């Protein structure tokens, strides 16, 4: 009995010792300061004759367009110390690495020769230049990112009409990491109507495989500042760059889609007066497809409710029903004009991203099948009527405008 107990004790000891050996650490572990955390990536087209050409890989055929990939690494070891007072010598919190090649995987393998390899992808932002998208379809560029096991499907995708890599070089607020601050800008959608619905890699899969057109937020860099300015369109069939929407057109697009989460509309109730700011609280839109004698037409009804936030007018009761009505009507007109502007632009670009096709698909599947193959062209000939209805529900905390 005693002997058996002793033996049990020894067995226990061995088991515990073995466990301790196994549990002390993950075998494939790597110290965090040794890791390159790649948090952003930008794709650009190398212009022939530009200064990047000297980086050109040896043995590449000159006809093939060359991709330049810029990867942004966060440097974990310097992140903590950047708060020091010796600002002149403050270490950078990130590092950009550039490499050119003809395919994404080729570039990645090449980078392995130049830096200690990146441990995995921790991407937050992907920026693709519009020039590159003219040459390469979206699915080719994203193919590797969508298939690799280290890449999550959560990074945000941007387009850039300028140089994509520039967006990884500057931040508006100094000392932030560009790739991360860029992603965080998208969280402001409830404050402005000029940000399109963000697209993560996961959300792109749908339109990519269904060959439908979609928009991506456009990043621009100017005067060492980064800005989301307008949006870029990816054309459905070819998945290449289809054109640019200005900030106003983005606003119109958001109204058409009923996706405005916040922001303001500037309107002038009576000529000669100061403008009034209408702050959007909620917005909705309905697209109705109508088929009469084989002729297709759309009716968009936009409804919104909001608040009168700021008016530079002489002392006046903001709750005055006559004035409220006037403001509602003027705001509706303004919204209508914005939406119409976007429709005109889409007609001009021969591309449709506002969900008209989807509305037709849901409401009249038979007709949709008929027009689907040449939808982007067909769309230009379809008359569209836009109605907007505004309800002013709130005057903010002060009922009188300030003197």
């Amino acid at each position, binding site marked *: 009995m005693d002997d058996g107990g002793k033996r049990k004790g020894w067995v226990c000891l061995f088991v515990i010792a073995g466990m301790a050996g196994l549990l002390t650490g993950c075998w494939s572990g790597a110290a965090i300061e040794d890791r390159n955390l790649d948090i952003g990536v930008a794709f650009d087209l190398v212009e022939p004759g530009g200064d990047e050409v000297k980086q050109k890989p040896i043995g590449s055929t000159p006809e093939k367009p060359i991709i330049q990939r810029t990867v942004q690494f966060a440097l974990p070891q310097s992140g903590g110390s950047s708060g020091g007072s010796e600002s002149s010598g403050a270490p950078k919190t990130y590092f950009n690495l550039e490499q050119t090649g003809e395919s994404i995987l080729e570039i990645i393998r090449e980078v392995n020769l130049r830096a200690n390899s990146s441990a995995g992808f921790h991407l937050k932002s992907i920026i693709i230049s519009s020039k590159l998208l003219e040459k390469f379809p979206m699915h080719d560029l994203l193919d590797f990112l*969508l298939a690799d*096991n*280290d890449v999550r*499907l*959560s990074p945000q995708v941007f387009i850039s009409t300028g140089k994509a890599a520039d967006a990884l070089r500057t931040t508006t607020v100094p000392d932030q990491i560009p790739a991360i601050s860029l992603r965080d800008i998208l969280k402001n959608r409830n404050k402005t109507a000029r940000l399109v619905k963000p697209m993560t890699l996961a959300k792109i899969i*749908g339109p990519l*495989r269904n060959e439908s057109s979609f928009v991506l937020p456009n990043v621009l860099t100017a005067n060492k500042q980064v800005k989301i300015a307008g949006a870029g369109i990816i054309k459905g069939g070819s998945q290449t760059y289809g054109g640019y929407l200005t900030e106003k057109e983005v606003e119109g697009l958001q109204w058409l889609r009923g996706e405005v989460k916040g922001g303001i509309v500037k309107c002038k109730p009576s000529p000669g007066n100061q403008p009034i700011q209408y702050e959007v609280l909620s917005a909705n839109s309905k697209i109705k497809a109508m088929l009469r004698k084989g002729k297709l037409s759309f009716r968009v009804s936009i409804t919104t409710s909001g608040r009168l936030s700021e008016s530079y007018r002489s002392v006046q009761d903001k709750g005055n029903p006559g004035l409220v009505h006037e403001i509602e009507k003027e705001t509706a007109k303004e919204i209508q004009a914005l939406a119409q502007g976007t429709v005109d632009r889409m007609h001009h670009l021969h591309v449709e991203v506002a969900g008209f096709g989807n509305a037709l698909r849901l409401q009249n599947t038979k007709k949709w099948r008929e027009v689907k193959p040449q939808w982007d062209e067909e769309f230009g000939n379809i008359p569209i009527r836009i109605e907007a209805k505004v309800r002013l529900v709130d005057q903010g905390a002060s009922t009188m405008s300030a003197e």
Partner: protein
Amino acid sequence: MELDKKNERLTTGQALFLFIGSMMGSELMTLPREVAQTGKVPDVWISIIISGLFYAFISWIMVKLAECYPQQTFYEFIQRLIGSWAGKAIGLLLVIYFLVFAGFELRSVNEVTSFLLLEGTPTWAISSVFLWLSLYMCAGGLFAIGKMCQVVVPIFLCALTVICLIGLFLFDSNYLRPVLSEGAMPVIRTLRTTLFSFSGHECLLFILYQMEKPREGRKVVGYGIGITLFFYVASVIVSIGAFSVKGVVTRTWPFVDVIRGVELSFLFLERLESLLLSIWIMQVFITFSICYYLAALGVSKVLRLPIAAALFILLPLVFLLSLLPKGISDLFAVGQLLGLVSFLFFSIASVLLLLIAKARSWRHG
């Protein structure tokens, strides 16, 4: 059977979780892609519901059949029903079926783990932990597995619910509408896949005799099929709602990609895939163990061996079987084949055997 001697019986809850555990294994992660591939329309979930109803019926027949022989497993009463030799032959074929099933689960877990969780960890390391732990558990008999199921399966169901809720961040109802836009034909065509996705339900034939209250077998079937059906439909709807039908077809593990597509900045963990995949591995461990145990049970009943010996004999076989598929597409083909066998054999066999059993009892008065 020495180890089963202790008069331990499964409670109704344990039997229910055993039943669910044997159905929802590695299937769930790939189901959305498989049905989208055959159906090519978003309405494939209707087809899953139809198959679910069909299996509710088949399982009910199995319960009826098992009720005729309350103290015996399928391996024993099939010998009484169709003769000793034929029964033994079918028993051995079933052993092979369960072995392949176990090997399939083992390999699936290896594929997913080495792709998403532990890149670089050798196959033998993952498999050996799996195999030895399972052997230890199975040596405790069905009761031990039932108790384990009671712990693991509810956790797994919670994890599934979390995945479905995460999926709502990506969800776009436009990908699912309009319902039945191409008519009913694609839904019927998809039955080809969905009818094969309930493999594992056959474990009913082997667990009912161990239940405390065998009368409650019907309850087990109702809740078991209901819960499984709910999560199958949810997984398909969530995946298609996130990636669209054409998108789902291109994703190897669509249900895992739903988790990978979302970053939850408001939680203490931004990325839940490691956590949820670990829970999923526990679930596959359950499915694997049930198959492994049923195979060993077959060997022990047919060849009259103690079950521990049978478990040790089968252990290397399962490991070798798991190494056989050359690549991931081979593996998925094995999964389809298992579904087909399960559908054909167990549906037909249980109906036929029930008829024979009824005819006999009628003849004997």
